[in-house]
């Protein structure tokens, strides 16, 4: 009985039905370390977490962003439904400080999610984080370089992320239970990506002002990407 309880912990739905079907327990594991290995920055790794972070923040749980590579941008987080009052951004001077901060955040058991960009992570630090995570009930994500896939890790879930046509390709390098045989593609694309089948040609400002009066553009901040793409395509 106890053994069973230990192996299947609570999960939180990822917000993507296809992904939930592949994850043991039907969602992101709580109180267990997860690694995300995006091939490049900006392919949709945060959009993947958006629904889970939004539901945690709505439940009043805090989200710690530790040593993020850039400034998290408040309007985008708000648009993803994340309560900004629950967001804690921790900037650190060194990798070591970042690991320490993540361990503290996990050990305090007060965070709903801990996102860490750890840099070069030695195995000992990884192991410490994994233990701290197991003691907590938080969603804990490490964002690591794709090269880390070849090294061993105590994380219970490892996902390699790469961009592909129509969204984000996920390869489950490691999960609890049976290994995944094939990757899956999630539609994390933004509305603008789907709606713009055609490329937009950049136009010089003079032409824009000839087409639409500058006053009108200033007066109406409303912006519809579909509309403007039609209007501007020559």
């Amino acid at each position, binding site marked *: 009985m106890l053994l069973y309880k230990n192996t299947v912990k609570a999960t939180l739905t990822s917000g993507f039905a296809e992904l939930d079907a592949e994850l043991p327990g039907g969602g992101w594991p709580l109180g267990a370390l997860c690694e995300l290995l995006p091939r*490049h920055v900006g392919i949709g790794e945060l*959009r993947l977490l958006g*629904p889970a972070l939004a539901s945690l923040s709505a439940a009043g749980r805090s989200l710690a962003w530790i040593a993020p590579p850039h*400034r998290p941008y408040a309007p985008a987080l708000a*648009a993803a439904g994340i309560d900004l009052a629950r967001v804690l951004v921790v900037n650190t001077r060194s990798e070591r400080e970042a690991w320490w*901060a993540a361990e503290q955040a996990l050990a305090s058991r007060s965070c709903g999610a801990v996102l860490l960009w750890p840099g070069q992570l030695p195995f000992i630090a990884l192991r410490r984080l994994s233990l701290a995570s197991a003691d907590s009930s938080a969603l804990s994500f490490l964002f690591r370089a794709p090269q880390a896939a070849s090294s061993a890790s105590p994380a219970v879930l490892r996902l390699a992320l790469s961009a592909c046509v129509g969204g984000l390709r996920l390869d489950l390098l490691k999960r609890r239970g049976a290994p995944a045989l094939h990757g899956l593609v999630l539609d994390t694309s*933004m509305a603008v990506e789907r709606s713009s089948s055609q490329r937009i040609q*950049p*136009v010089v400002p003079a032409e824009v002002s000839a087409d639409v009066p500058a006053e009108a553009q200033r007066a109406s901040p409303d912006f519809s990407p579909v509309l403007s793409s039609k209007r501007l395509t020559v």
Partner: protein
Amino acid sequence: MLWISLLLPQLPLELYGRGSLLPDALNDAKSDAKSDAKPGAKVNANAKALAILEGRGADCEHDHAFSSGRIIACNARAEAAGVCRGMSSSAALALLPELQLRLRDRAGETELLLNLASWAGQFTPSVALDFPNALTLEVSGSLRLFGGLPALLSRLRHGLAQTGHQVWIGVAPTPRAALWLARQALAQGLPAYGDATQPSPQQATEAALPPMLTEQTLQAGVAAMSINLLQPDAQSDAPLALACDALRGLGLRTLGEVLALPRDGLRQRFGPVLLRELDRALGSQPDPRTFFVPPPRFSASLELLSEVNRAEAVQFAAQRLLNQFAGYLAARSAGTRRFMLRLGHREGRFTDVVVGMISPARSAEHFGLLLRERLATLSLRQPVRLLRLEAEDIQPWAGADVALLPDSTDGTGLGVGAAAEAWPKLVERLRARLGDASVQGLALAADHRPEHASVTAAVSLSMSPSAAQKHQHNQHSLPSSQLHASTSATSSPLPRGRGERPFWLLPRPRPLPERNAVPLHEDGPLALLAGPERIESGWWDGDDVARDYFVARTPKASVVWIYRERGALQGGQWYLHGLFA
């Protein structure tokens, strides 16, 4: 009425010795396990031998007292070498050349006793001072709160061990009897209550109780006490001491024998004082006490036996003060947001370490953790010889609401209530180590310029859904269920009036080269997906922007946010401003 008397006979010694990093307990436990020597005389090889001197009468001046003074207290290490009370300083130094001598500091002892009274206020509001070295607590009203007398005594013992004091305890229905009982325990050579240096089998159990008298045994207990307990300081010329001498001269040994004498004769011979003392001890006369009121500010100091330049040693000594401080806060049912530890160096110089908190706190453990982070980043230029803890910002403690029903765990394993308590502590801890500016919250600002629309904010401490979030919902007229429960964040409609915004914004826009009117990313030419979104704003504060924003895809399928400066006729420079992660 139930009185607990705390007798602190080692106060002159503890004034200097309690800050030493090598507590006797630590080393003695080890040596005990090895040799199992006689439990009475513990010798700690690492502890420094220390003795306190006191001059007599006019010799109290500094230089003179060192040569002519007599030893009034010494620690176990000195005692093992043969130093004892009443010895002259030269004789003691002949026995033990490395003996450290200190002059008795009566003012310091009084301050320490007052601080301990503040500390003891956490157990009962009725703390009376018995100068020079005892506290008497009336605890009948607190027994229920602390779960009975044994539980209360165990807490007292634990707390006193943490503040670094040896205490002898007596429990009785009257304050005087309690004090005499404690003196009796000391005189009989019983080990200090809960003293870890005396790990005899009886003491090892938590249930070990100090000597105790009840209403029924009070009469017999007092009758069996020795006369000497009335006034242990034999040199005193108070009327009581003179009476004691006279009684001893009559051949009386116990108080019972004194009580058996005719009262009228006693009153005539020794005055009213002796009878009053005895009647008060037996409870047949009232014994009114003035209770101690904690001061509005906290200030306590600790002189170190030797100069210290390691952070752990400072931390250890500071923890003694922090424990006292926590007791003081509990006694006043208050918390603090800021305290200052002053590290005293030679020549009256100080290094001040200020620890601030974002919400009032009162736990010694939490203070200790914060202080450790501060001390870890501090480099001491000079060794420390004195610690002083000061706190002025004492605030009423709001207390935490306790739910009637067990905490709801919302499926995440931990109650929201418990998380709400741990949250400010986490933020404080991170701030103590990383600096205040490194730990920030996020907020929206009403500005069209992208770099001004996201600002750092104070970290929110409440755990309820914020007003900002509710406001945002209203603004977008989206039911929250739609925002949160949507299967994909992108399926919710874009906020009106805005294009997509990237998760990462570069702190400074990065210029992009251009080829054939197509901007080039480091990976190759960019494909524009959406745009332009024109943003012109900010002419009023000198940070004027006029830009056309585009969403673009790199050849490696990352999606980025770029803009082109407006103004020039042929199109301005391209910039990379954000990453859609």
